């Protein structure tokens, strides 16, 4: 990993810098200073990382291995006891978790491909030099990123809600059957649409900016060779975008596995979303409504592990082309 050719990396080795003529004392002090410096720069982040990431993870694992048992017959007190993997067994045997995971897979298969497909298409079209309204479209499509998921869901919820919905209103006046957004199957589309609406623009910008980094001489050469815009897009631009596509896919997967805000906000408007509709909603219900933090912790650990394995597996599969380790 280390690049010995980069002298000015501030290595702690005394004498590595061109400061040979200074007094020995100050040189030593500077050497100590620059050895200490990276520690000090990283200290605040490391402390917060330990306090708000590592310790909570450890605590969640600890909780997941404990449970409350009533000791001492009828008048016994509830005490916290070690239960080993019981919570995991119970969590994995709970059909509600599996139902929510199936729903999550359906939802994810809707959101991730459609959102990234649209983002890629828009990014490529923004990059067509003869397309009009590019600035306006870029800002308009990126705008929903600034709208919180909860509020986006409220806006779409009203657009779906019979009695207020302009979409139903328009359909009725065109003598079309009014679409039912709150159906057993269409509810998936209704929630997915909110997430797609909120996420397309951000991913489009990520893909578009990495397209902009490609030197345009590359395209000129292709045009001279008789390539059309379509061929340039499929044969040059998309292959060049692969690392950015991998990165946006990983982030979209992580976000999708944590879906919570949208279905929670849509719940008051329809009775089709049970309190365990998605895994995270089930975790929330178990912890705060059912009051069983131990089982909620076990499910959290399972979900976090699944997310980590899925995203790491995906990165490994594509040879970790997403994160620039050393630039």
């Amino acid at each position: 990993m280390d690049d010995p050719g980069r002298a000015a990396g501030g290595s702690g080795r005394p004498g590595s810098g061109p400061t040979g003529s200074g007094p020995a004392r100050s040189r030593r002090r500077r050497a100590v200073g620059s050895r200490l410096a990276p520690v000090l720069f990283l200290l605040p982040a490391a402390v917060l990382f330990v306090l708000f990431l590592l310790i909570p993870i450890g605590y969640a694992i600890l909780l997941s291995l404990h449970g409350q048992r009533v000791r001492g017959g009828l008048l016994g007190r509830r005490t916290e006891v070690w239960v080993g993997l019981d919570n995991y067994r119970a969590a994995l045997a709970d059909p509600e978790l599996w139902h929510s995971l199936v729903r999550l897979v359906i939802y994810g298969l809707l959101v991730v491909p459609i959102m990234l497909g649209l983002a890629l298409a828009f990014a490529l079209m923004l990059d067509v030099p003869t397309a009009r309204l590019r600035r306006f479209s870029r800002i308009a499509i990126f705008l929903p990123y600034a709208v919180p998921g909860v509020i986006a869901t409220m806006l779409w919820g009203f657009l779906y809600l019979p009695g207020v919905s302009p979409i139903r209103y328009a359909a009725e006046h065109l003598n079309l059957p009014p679409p039912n957004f709150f159906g057993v199957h269409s509810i998936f589309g209704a929630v997915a649409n909110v997430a797609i609406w909120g996420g397309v623009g951000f991913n489009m910008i990520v893909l578009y900016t990495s397209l902009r980094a490609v030197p345009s001489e590359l395209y000129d050469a292709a045009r001279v060779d008789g390539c059309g815009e379509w061929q340039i897009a499929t044969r040059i631009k998309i292959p060049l975008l692969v690392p950015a596509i991998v990165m946006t896919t990983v982030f979209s997967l992580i976000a999708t596995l944590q879906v919570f805000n949208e279905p929670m906000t849509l719940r008051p408007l329809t009775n089709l979303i049970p309190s365990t509709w998605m895994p995270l909603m089930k975790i929330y219900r178990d912890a705060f409504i059912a009051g069983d933090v131990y089982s909620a912790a076990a499910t959290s650990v399972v979900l976090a592990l699944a997310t980590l394995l899925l995203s790491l597996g995906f990165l490994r599969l594509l040879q970790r082309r997403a994160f620039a380790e050393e630039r």
Partner: protein
Amino acid sequence: MTAPARRPAARPALLPTAALLAGAIYCLLPVLWVLIAATKTRSELFSTFSYAPSFSGGLTENVRGLFDYSDGRFVRWARNSVLYAGVGAALSTMVSAAAGYGLAKYRFRGRTLAFNILLAGVLLPQITLAIPQYLLLSKVGMAGTYWSVLLPSIIYPYGIYLCRIYAAAAVPDDMIEAGRIDGAGEGRIFRSIAVPVMVPGLVTVFLLQFIAIWNNFLLPFIMLSDEDKYPLTVGLFTMINQGVQKPALYTLVITGALLSILPLIALFLFLQRYWRMDLLSGAVKR
């Protein structure tokens, strides 16, 4: 779509233009709807076509109703959102800048390990942490306080990652070395040489984190029980939950939604030229 390269004034590409326009309309539709719906009185909301604005004074009535709701709770929620997002993003940017610079510009033992732990933090579903964070903070009596929302928002692994990329690309090693020769300490070099060069990257990290905290729902939803400490997202959520029993609240919720997205959209439009979005795709040019 074979546009000739040498003629800049070629005829417009119809298909891409139409597709982009369709995307723009899809994205603006709900925002436009809430803008119009907020002008309607309670009875108009359910009786007139949604995209027909009303000029019968509905907007002022709705805004007044919203500001009067529960003794001006809405204004308090807005203030809290500004506090959580503003202070949280500022602290987060400072911590990320120092850590990113440290990772980019120093060689030390454990550097690769630190970077890999950081990446694992980027991939970790932050939200599953909220429950153990809540339980731990309630043990030390901090759950339900402003701190319980602020402190967990400061650590932002992706921000550190972005700062590291930006520092590596934008801060020349020669400048650091020149500073050392002039006898400047490492902290001074960071403050007066690195930070000024890193400003565009730092603005990007600040905005990303500002929007992430402003949009956050689960963390404050779990941490807070006092309605006066809610941010806008949680506050409006409780309003729409009551709206089931009291549809009269719908007009207030709609107006509240509009008023809470307008400042963010304004900020976003104003600052979008300062963004370095190429950071996100790792396409920073040296």
